């Protein structure tokens, strides 16, 4: 029983670390700002999630149990997309995207483009 839990915890930590490593590698390897944005959002989900799951299994098997990890995951999953969206909006606003986004199927334009263009030498 204990051995099975040990193997499970180790496996979860290794999987989490692996995904965080892939996320960091992707940040270096991918070439455009919008593509780069994909790498950290991935390590932020499964990488951190798997590490936290390992922490939870450890707490329930060897300690008194803990559910703080679920809260960390919940708050992370709520806040991470917001920062990702803001980075994307900055990239669109400063025209740092490789290909301009097509115009929306409904409405006149994208919200970010409705604002005046940023000054490049600012």
């Amino acid at each position, binding site marked *: 029983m204990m051995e099975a839990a040990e193997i499970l915890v180790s496996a979860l930590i290794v999987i989490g670390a692996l*995904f965080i490593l*892939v996320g960091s*590698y*992707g940040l270096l*390897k*991918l*070439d*455009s700002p*919008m*593509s780069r*944005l*994909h*790498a950290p*959002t*991935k390590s932020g*989900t*499964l990488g951190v*999630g798997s590490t936290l799951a390992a922490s939870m299994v450890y707490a329930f098997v060897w300690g*008194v149990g*803990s*559910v*703080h990890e*679920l*809260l960390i995951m919940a708050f992370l*999953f*709520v806040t*991470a*997309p*917001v920062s*990702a*969206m803001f980075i*994307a*909006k900055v*990239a*669109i606003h400063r025209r740092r995207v*490789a*290909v301009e*986004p*097509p115009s*929306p*199927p*409904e*409405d*006149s*334009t*994208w*919200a*970010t483009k*409705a604002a005046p263009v940023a000054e490049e030498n600012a």
Partner: protein
Amino acid sequence: MASRLTRRIFPHPLLTLLLTLVWCMLINTPSTGAVAFGLILGILIPILTAAYWPQRPLMRRPYRMVSYILIVVWDIVLANVQVALIVLFKSNARMKPNWVCIPLDLRTPEAIAILAGTITLTPGTVSADLSDEGHSLLVHALDAPDPDAVRDDIKHRYERRLKEIFE
């Protein structure tokens, strides 16, 4: 009369439940005291903040949120592996990053926020912008030779379920 009084005390019953649950999880050791204080917070905070959230959505089928979350978690695990393989073994030149436009059927702002968050959390896609009137969503896909397939997948898999929950 009675129902109006209940709505005064519980302007947002699901928020009350959620706050109580979060408080109990923060305390981390199950006890009656934690539940009691959590309930006090869960009742007070919605009353104090009700004025700042006047047009809150009526969740028609809140219980379906559970199956939605399970589906999203499963998709996150699956897509993480796919994206990891793309990042590791596909050269930048052969990758086809693409913009995907999604015309929205959802009209509830909270539901659109959940949809945008879901899209960002599932690897391979990041929601980037909303149109000026909020009727379409701009999504960036890391490797999508066929943007229409991504659009249909998101509309069918997530938006349809959110529409059932909220509208």
